[in-house]
């Protein structure tokens, strides 16, 4: 379980997180929604340790994130980045097997490649993609490779940062389905950041909306449409009029 207690983070005078409180239960898929620049990605980066919160606490399984052994903690995480963040200089299979070829339990090149090909197959890519380089792939294929890399070491917790941004609607649907299937199949805890409502409905068990640096609303995905929260209503129905200013 991941718990955020009153997490605050500022960049100069820009107060991005003003006290985020959030609980992501083990084995559940939490989707965080909110407009651009509201602090979704910063929340995720704080959990991963890529940013250090100015105040507040982040607990992983009840223990402050800082007290976990960093490598052990990161070994439990998988992450799909918005742009894929694939390493240009490595082939597709080396990207997928990156973690497997390092550390105390590293696999041989042949074994790591076999695992990578299997994970690529799991995300719908053929074995002949394995030896290509990321620049040779389409955006949708890069996303799938990123997904294969995120699940390669079978992590307990997976983060998805805007998984469908930049993809056509059909490919978005494919990625959403894949994420849902993989999360259920692995029994992993998932946290997804998106503003694509089709992703929310396809992926989420729970939804949290961040607005102005705080969690505005949180609840089960089924309750989202009848929440009565004007901020959430405006966001999910894509209305220009409402409490959220269209131009921020």
């Amino acid at each position, binding site marked *: 379980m991941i718990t955020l207690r009153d997490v605050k983070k500022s960049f100069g005078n820009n107060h991005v997180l003003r006290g985020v409180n959030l609980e992501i239960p083990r084995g559940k898929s939490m989707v965080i929604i909110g407009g651009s620049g509201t602090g979704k990605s910063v929340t995720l980066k704080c959990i991963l340790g890529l940013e250090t919160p100015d105040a507040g606490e982040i607990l992983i399984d009840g223990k402050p994130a800082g007290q976990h052994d960093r490598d052990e903690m990161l*070994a439990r995480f998988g992450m799909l*980045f918005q*742009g894929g963040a*694939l390493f240009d200089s490595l082939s597709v299979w080396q990207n997928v097997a990156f973690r497997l070829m*390092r550390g105390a339990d590293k696999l041989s090149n042949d074994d790591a490649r076999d695992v990578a090909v299997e994970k690529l197959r799991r995300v719908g890519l053929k074995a002949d993609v394995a030896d290509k380089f990321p620049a040779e792939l389409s955006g949708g294929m890069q996303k799938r490779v990123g997904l294969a890399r995120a699940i390669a070491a079978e992590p307990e917790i997976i983060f998805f940062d805007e998984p469908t941004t930049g993809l056509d609607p059909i490919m978005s649907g494919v990625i959403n389905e894949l994420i849902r299937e993989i999360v259920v199949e692995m029994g992993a805890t998932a946290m997804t950041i998106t503003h694509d409502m089709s992703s929310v409905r396809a992926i989420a068990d729970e939804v949290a909306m961040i607005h102005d640096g705080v969690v505005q609303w949180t609840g089960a995905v089924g309750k989202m449409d009848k929440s009565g929260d004007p901020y959430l209503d405006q966001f999910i129905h894509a209305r220009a009029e409402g409490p959220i200013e269209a131009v921020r």
Partner: protein
Amino acid sequence: MAFLLNFLGAIGAAVLGFCGTVGRIAIFAASGVSHIFRPPFYGRELWQQILQIGFFSLPVVGLTALFTGAALALQIYSGGSRFNAESVVPSIVAIGMVRELGPVLGGLMVAGRVSSSIAAELGTMRVTEQIDALVTLSTNPMKYLVAPRLLAAILTMPVLVGVGDTIGILGGYLVGTERLGFNAAVYLQNTVNFLTGPDIVSSLAKAAVFGFIVALMGCYHGYHSGRGAQGVGRATINAVVSASVMILAANYVLTEMFFSS
């Protein structure tokens, strides 16, 4: 009064900013160097960087040295003829190339080629979140990206400069024997007799320091690149400019250390 305070305040802010940058570079350098000696070691990345920084810089360093040595021979002959001292051409070409021009020009050429390339590569990795991805894959970017580049530059620059010195002397030799009428054997004999061990050691030591500066500036500016294409462009410019200036400054300090007595 307010103008004076603003003026002094601006000077103070600039000095503080400069001190802050120097401090950040020093901490970055210490961290990068410490990762060279601490496992895990990334041999494949080190080998790639040795090729990238050292081997592929050979043509540019070689050509620079060749033409510099040749021009130096002409200049010394022309200047020396005023005092009937044309015979010093072999010795001055050798000492000029080995002590100063070989390491400095080699360092500057490699700064242009390698600092910019490292800064652009790491800057792009920063902008496209590849450096963040490394962290999430339990890989320390300082160890995986910075340490191999620093070590490769420290190891390969002395070799590059050694080759550059030799080619520079060869350039002087070709001009001296083919154009200025020196006897080949006498030219070589003068060169060998005049060069001393400390000349060569100082050349290679300067090269190692310049290599460190080139890689450090490329890594530092790339690693801390701003967002977007403009951020990467600025990181590249800063890397080349700061590496070049630091090489020239370090050259003076090292020359004082080696030859002031």
